[in-house]
């Protein structure tokens, strides 16, 4: 039996470490302008956001569809027929910090620097 003091310190330490990691993830902005549309683990389309024209297209996933909207420099999921709408609420992304994910449709939109995945330094 450890003392409660030990557990308080352990949990506080874990919380501090997670907070630090979360802050690092969100403040680091890995470069990159190439958006990759990944469906079920396969890259189905890449768009260079610097030279992109405004457009909207529909991605057909396993259990539904996501409407992806592209504007110069940024990309978002405009609407989706999944139940939770997490991907839609995430809004526009314009750098490699956090990818857009629609888990029900297994769709991931990530921004990389092209051949170098932008998040490896953070995630790896």
């Amino acid at each position, binding site marked *: 039996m450890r003392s409660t003091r030990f557990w308080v310190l352990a949990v506080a330490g874990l*919380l501090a470490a997670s907070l630090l990691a979360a802050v690092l993830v969100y403040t680091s902005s890995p470069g990159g302008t190439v958006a990759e549309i990944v469906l079920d683990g396969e890259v189905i389309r890449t768009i260079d956001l610097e030279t992109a024209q405004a457009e909207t297209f529909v991605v057909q996933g396993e259990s539904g569809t996501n409407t992806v909207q592209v504007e110069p420099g940024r990309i978002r999921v405009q609407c989706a027929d999944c*139940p939770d709408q*997490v991907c839609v*609420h995430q809004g526009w992304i314009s750098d490699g910090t956090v990818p857009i994910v629609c888990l029900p449709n297994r769709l991931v939109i990530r921004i990389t620097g092209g051949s170098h995945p932008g998040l490896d330094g953070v995630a790896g």
Partner: protein
Amino acid sequence: MIFLRTKEVLPVEVRRLTRMALLTAIALAIFVAEAQLPAPVPIYGVKLGLANIVTVWAVFLLGPADAAMILLARVVLGCLATGQMMALLFSLGGGALCLLVSIPLSRVLTRKQMWVCSVAGAVAHNIGQILVAVAVTRTPELVVYLPVLLVSGIITGLFTGLCAQLLAGRLEFLLRLK
């Protein structure tokens, strides 16, 4: 709770089944009610997890087998009730890892340290969720969500754990059904 006052002695297995069914129903009601709340943060997997008050309580006071069965029944029925079959996969992965951590931990903790078990369970649940998400989407980059999930998991785990701890002394009658 008239049935609690009956003088008839029910077979042990019937008592156990009744108690598990009652706790599953309570957990399911909490789970479905919580699912009606809008997501606080636009990140998949961030939620209060109030139904885990029942899980933590069961791990401590009923033992591993009963707790696992209550959790399994709640997760399957809960995902059926809310229509999020995708969430079933994540909840099963997270739930399994959560039990794997909280059951051994509950043996070395006192009743006044139930919150530790809840926090550790929440953290294990988050890690399980991310592992399932990485496997399903085959996108290892999803690991970047882990720190955010952990922060929310530690805070909500602390809350549900303290709730379970406060309830522990007040639900003794459920144990008398033994």
